[in-house]
């Protein structure tokens, strides 16, 4: 089946982002297609590549990035949520003269059309917030 997953929660402040990660892994492990990850609202913080986490703790942002890269998952962070929260790709960082990108390149910065598309083309859409 085709799954899409929407993540509304920032990492660390609630369990939701972590639950979504475990769910996403299980979807892939069972051979389903993960059509899209969509990070929305505070969820965009999951795509930050600037996190520095102690060795004995989870680095959720890096775990998302590893999963996305390993399986070539289509991952989108909502542009309007991301900009106001300072989660920027290189293009946006350059445009606003804000130095290096704060977002992992494994996620694309795009609009809500990608969420609507996911709703239309997935068999199951699951929300974590």
């Amino acid at each position, binding site marked *: 089946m085709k*799954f899409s997953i929407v993540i*509304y929660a920032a990492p660390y402040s609630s*369990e*939701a982002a972590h*639950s979504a990660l475990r769910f996403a892994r299980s979807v892939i492990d069972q051979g389903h297609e993960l059509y899209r990850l969509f990070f929305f609202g505070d969820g965009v913080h999951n795509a930050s590549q600037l996190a520095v986490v102690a060795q004995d703790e989870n680095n959720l942002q890096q775990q998302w990035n590893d999963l996305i890269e390993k399986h070539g998952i289509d991952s989108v962070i909502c542009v309007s949520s991301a900009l106001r929260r300072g989660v920027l790709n290189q293009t946006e960082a350059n445009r606003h003269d804000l130095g290096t990108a704060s977002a992992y390149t494994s996620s694309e910065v795009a609009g809500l059309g990608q969420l609507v598309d996911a709703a239309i083309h997935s068999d*199951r859409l*699951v929300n974590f917030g």
Partner: protein
Amino acid sequence: MSCLHTISKSPGTQLLESCLKIIASGDAILFIEDGTYYANSARKLEAIDKACKIYGLREDMLARAILTKAADSVELIDTARFVKLCCEHDKIVSWF
């Protein structure tokens, strides 16, 4: 056209009560994260049990030390089965 409702916040939020207002007979409820504290409320769950199947996410209940306190009406499942449940139902409504 049955629906899986996931509930992920503690009973103080009254999410289950809200869900019950619009749930359809034959739908299923899955408690995850802090929603798993609902799984201890045998009395509260008794009324639902007849119309809707109730599940609790084992990992979350283990972490919280409430696995052995779960009401009989709650079927304990892992994340893999959570994914399967999503397949078995037509859509998922997340309460958070």
